[in-house]
């Protein structure tokens, strides 16, 4: 591990100015931008592992977490990232605000905008909600998940996790398995992983596969065993419980039998396979605990750690752009 002073130099050397005011989708990144963000994020990992984790890239800046869908993990990850960069943070969630009193998303955004935040991190159940907000506010908007569309910082943290665990992402075969239809994580990862040179398979039952997914550049495979064959990375997706009761798949047990990840199915993958999951996991539904907790294959805990670093890279580079534009 580098010396503390070296880490700060490293961060400064890798400083990056975000190419646009908002970060709304992984699909909008170019490869050099993605590489630069990953390189900066990698430097932040070192910072996050030392005793004094504070820096000043966002000093004086205000970040608002606007989460219309609750998410302990993502929200606290953004909050920690912002605080370690020296920003003031405010968390807002719709259930405790006036959204329930008929105020629209736009009204809320305009109200918040008047308080002059610098960065608005938004999660919303509707696809396109972050795009809509970005059109109506003067600050930077970071998409922390919009419906079934995108969750770009998740893709970034997944790429960072893979890069640190396996070195180069180019040439890897990544199987993204499960409920692709409703998954914003899958869409962002398909975009970013392919950008970075990985080949991507989408694996899941036809009822959970979006129509036209075969035109995304990925290979669509319905048979889990065939989909796992020789894969270097298996990325499992969360399956919402309400979708399993005959709506999209007949039952939990049937789903686990055919698409749940256990050691038996995993044995078909590459011998050095790594397993990922964006969390929270449904153990025994999409993933067996034996696999999830196996330190030899599981990167799930690393993903959580990398989340903070990846978000620090995004926030600091957005702030660098704000500094520059001003």
């Amino acid at each position, binding site marked *: 591990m580098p010396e503390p002073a070296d880490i700060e130099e490293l961060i400064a050397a890798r400083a990056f100015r975000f190419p646009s005011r908002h970060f709304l989708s992984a699909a909008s990144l170019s490869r050099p931008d993605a590489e630069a963000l990953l390189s900066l994020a990698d430097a932040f990992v070192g910072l996050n592992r030392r005793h004094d984790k504070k820096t000043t890239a966002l000093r004086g800046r205000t970040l608002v977490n606007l989460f219309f869908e609750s998410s302990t993990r993502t929200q606290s990850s953004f909050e920690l990232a912002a605080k370690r960069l020296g920003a003031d943070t405010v968390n807002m969630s719709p259930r405790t605000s006036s959204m329930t009193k008929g105020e*629209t*998303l*736009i009204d809320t955004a305009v109200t918040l905008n008047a308080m002059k935040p610098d960065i608005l991190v938004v999660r*919303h159940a*509707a*696809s*396109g*909600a972050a*795009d*809509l907000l970005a059109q109506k506010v003067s600050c930077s908007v970071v998409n922390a998940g*919009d*419906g*079934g*569309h*995108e969750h770009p910082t998740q893709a970034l943290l997944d790429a960072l996790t893979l890069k640190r665990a396996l070195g180069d992402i180019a040439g890897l075969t990544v199987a993204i398995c499960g409920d692709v239809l409703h998954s*914003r994580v899958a*869409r962002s990862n398909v975009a970013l992983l392919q950008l970075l040179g990985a080949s991507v398979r989408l694996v899941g039952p036809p009822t959970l596969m*979006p*129509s*036209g*997914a075969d*035109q*995304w550049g990925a290979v669509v495979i319905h048979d889990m065993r065939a989909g796992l064959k020789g894969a270097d990375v298996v990325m499992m997706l969360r399956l919402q419980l309400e979708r399993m009761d005959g709506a999209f798949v007949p039952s939990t047990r049937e789903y686990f039998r055919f698409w749940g990840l256990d050691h038996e199915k995993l044995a078909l993958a590459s011998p050095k396979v790594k397993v990922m999951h964006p969390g929270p996991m449904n153990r025994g539904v999409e993933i067996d605990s034996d696999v999830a907790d196996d330190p030899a294959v599981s990167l799930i805990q690393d993903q959580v750690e990398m989340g903070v670093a990846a978000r620090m890279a995004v926030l600091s580079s957005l702030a660098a752009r704000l500094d520059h534009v001003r």
Partner: protein
Amino acid sequence: MSAKTGAEARPFAIVGARLVDPASGYDGPGAVIVAEGVIAEAVHAPSIAHLSADIAVIDAEGALLIPGLIDLRVKTGEPGSEPKETLKSASRAAARGGVTSMVLQPDTDPAIDDPAMVDFILRRARDIEGVHVYPAGAATRRCEGERMAEIGLMREAGAVYFTDADRPIVDSKVFRRVLSYAKAFGAMVAHRPADPWLSAGACATEGELAGRLGLSAAPAVAERIMLERDLALAELTGARLLADQITTADALESLKRAKDKGVQVVASASINHLSFNEVDIGDYRTFYRLDPPLRTEDDRQALIEALASGLIDIVVSAHAPAPAEDKRLPFSEAAPGAVGLETLLPALLALHQDGRAPLIDLIRAVTLKPAEILGLDAGRIRKGAPADLVLVDAAAPVRIDADRLTSKSKNSPFDGRTLTGRLLTTWVDGRVIDGA
């Protein structure tokens, strides 16, 4: 060039026009004399000899003179949602768009589902003294798709056809009875085909684009599935069916088979589905959130072809006003629909400009055809017909600025686009209706 309202009692002549009258199949130099609200004379020549001195003469200078448009699918917010659109604002928007007759959808609040409501709408329309207004009656009470509405009494009161508008009549038994009952009164039933289960919660057409955008989508066959049912029931009952807003190539094939077989069906296309495809949704632009949703470019091309061939009988504006607060929402939460009264004619003329169909065929689909379908004395330029006329500079490009539309709601997908045809004058029963 425009005559003032005060001149209505005085006869006037429009000379030097390019007259397009689908009823006589004529497209060429023309002139008309209007007296006492009717066309006193229509000639297929640039001028009329021996005009008496008391006739005011309007020189059209080669502008296009056509019958006033008849729009069979218009929603206002009256009664119930007047901030969206009133009869008066819709009538003004219609006049600005060259629409001289509009058929109102019955899914208001309360619904137009009894003769008193039909009468109410007709009285309100008379008070406004704008364009002609014809209510469509609800096919079922409150448009709920369960119990039949008073089709016979509404027909007597003046309802021109029967429909539950955007709400599908899911129960096939109910729909069958509506069809057979309406047939006894010679009444037409309109139904927008969409399988309700496949379409539930959908805001886009299933495909690569909707999948990538993460929008809940219905497959295009949802339309064909319901249309096949409707056609089968129309065949069974012998009733007249208006297949409302066909949008997919697949459904057009079903429609063709039924027409070839002699089923009493006519079909409409909305100007939106003739003008846009799903790609226009772009980054979740809610002015393109429509119901039915926008389709692929292949579907749009098939629809234009069907219009040119006459398989699609009429074009409607599908005018559906939605205020900003209902549109400035995430795509899936935004209200569907678009205003269209003011842009129907310029959008059609733009299709013609693109070389997609002869002008007379496009004009027929918004004048003569809808008049024939409803049995209205309109849609023709001939002696004795009501003087519902439109004069338009058919070559002029017009840039649509939604904020400057007359409609109370500004949700136009044509916003910022350049269409064709600057409207000069709209006459209803020989009166100038300027939409101001």
